[in-house]
C-alpha cells in the first residue's frame, strides 16, 4: 500500500486559509471583506443562532487543500451549560479507506491504552485557526504514514 506523505509549511497553511476565505466570500452573500473582520464579528456573536459560523468550513477546506483531496469530516461545536465554549471537535475520515484519520492511542503507564477519535481546539483569533489546521494536518500526516 502506498503511504501518503504530506508536506506543508506555516506559510502554505496561511495561504490555504486565505484561499478558502476568498472562496467562501464568492459562494455566499458575505457581509465581511476580510477574515479578520469576520473574526471580529465572530468574537461578538458566536452564540447568536443567526450568526453564520463558518469556522469548521474554513478549517477543513484549508486542511483539504494541503492534503490535496476531499476528506469526510464531522465537527461538533462544544457546549457547556452556559452555551458554546468556542471549542471545535473534529473527526476526519479518509473516504478512500474509511480509516479515521483523527484516531490515535497512547499509553501513559505502559498498561492502560487511551484512545481518541477527535482533535479539538478553541478558536478565538486567527492564530487559533492556523494552530488547529496545523494540529489536524500533523495528526492526518501521522495516520496516513502508518498502516
Amino acid at each position, binding site marked *: 500500500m502506498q503511504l501518503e506523505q504530506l508536506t506543508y509549511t506555516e506559510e502554505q497553511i496561511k495561504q490555504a486559509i486565505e484561499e478558502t476565505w476568498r472562496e467562501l466570500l464568492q459562494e455566499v452573500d458575505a457581509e465581511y471583506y476580510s477574515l479578520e473582520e469576520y473574526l471580529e464579528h465572530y468574537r461578538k456573536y458566536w*452564540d*447568536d*443562532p443567526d450568526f453564520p*459560523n463558518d469556522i469548521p468550513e474554513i478549517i477543513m477546506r484549508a486542511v483539504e487543500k494541503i492534503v490535496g483531496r*476531499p476528506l*469526510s*469530516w*464531522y465537527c*461538533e*461545536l462544544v*457546549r457547556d*451549560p452556559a*452555551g*458554546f465554549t468556542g471549542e471545535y*471537535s473534529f*473527526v*476526519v*475520515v479518509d*473516504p478512500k479507506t*474509511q*480509516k*479515521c484519520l483523527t*484516531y490515535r492511542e497512547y499509553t501513559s503507564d505502559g498498561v492502560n491504552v487511551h*484512545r*481518541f*477519535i*477527535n482533535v479539538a481546539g478553541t478558536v478565538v483569533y486567527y492564530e487559533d485557526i492556523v494552530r488547529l489546521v496545523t494540529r489536524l494536518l500533523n495528526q492526518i500526516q501521522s*495516520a496516513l504514514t502508518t498502516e
Partner: protein
Amino acid sequence: MDREKVLQALREAQAEYDIKDLDRLVREAWEEGDVLYAEIVVELIERAVEILFNQHFLWVHIVESEDCEEWIPDGWYSFVAVHPETGQCLTFFNDPVYRRRSASFRARIRSADDAVDAVMRLAELIEQNLKSRAVE
C-alpha cells in the same frame, strides 16, 4: 437486523442505566428540551448497539438543537462510531442527498419507536461497514 434483538438490546441497556420508561425519557428529552435526558438517550442508543455486536466502539455524538444560544435539544442526534482496534469509521456512508461521503449517522429520536428505529439503522450501517472491511 432483527427487530426483536434490537428491542432486547435496548431493554438490556435500559436496565444498565436503570431507565424504566424509555418513551417518557425520549419524549422529555425533546418536549422539555432537557439536555441531560438527551445525553442519556444517546448513551442508551450507543450502548444498545454495543450489546448487539457484543463489543465496545469509540463514539462521538451531537445532541442537536435549533437554538445555539439556549441549547434546547430538538430531537435530532448524530453519531460517529470508530472501531477501537482498526480505527475504521463504522458510520461511514455515501450520502445521496448531499452527494458526499459522510462520516456520521443522523437520526430523529422523539419517541421509543424512533429509538428502536435508530438503533436498528445504526446497527445495520455498522454491520455493512464491518462486512466491507472483512471483504477487503
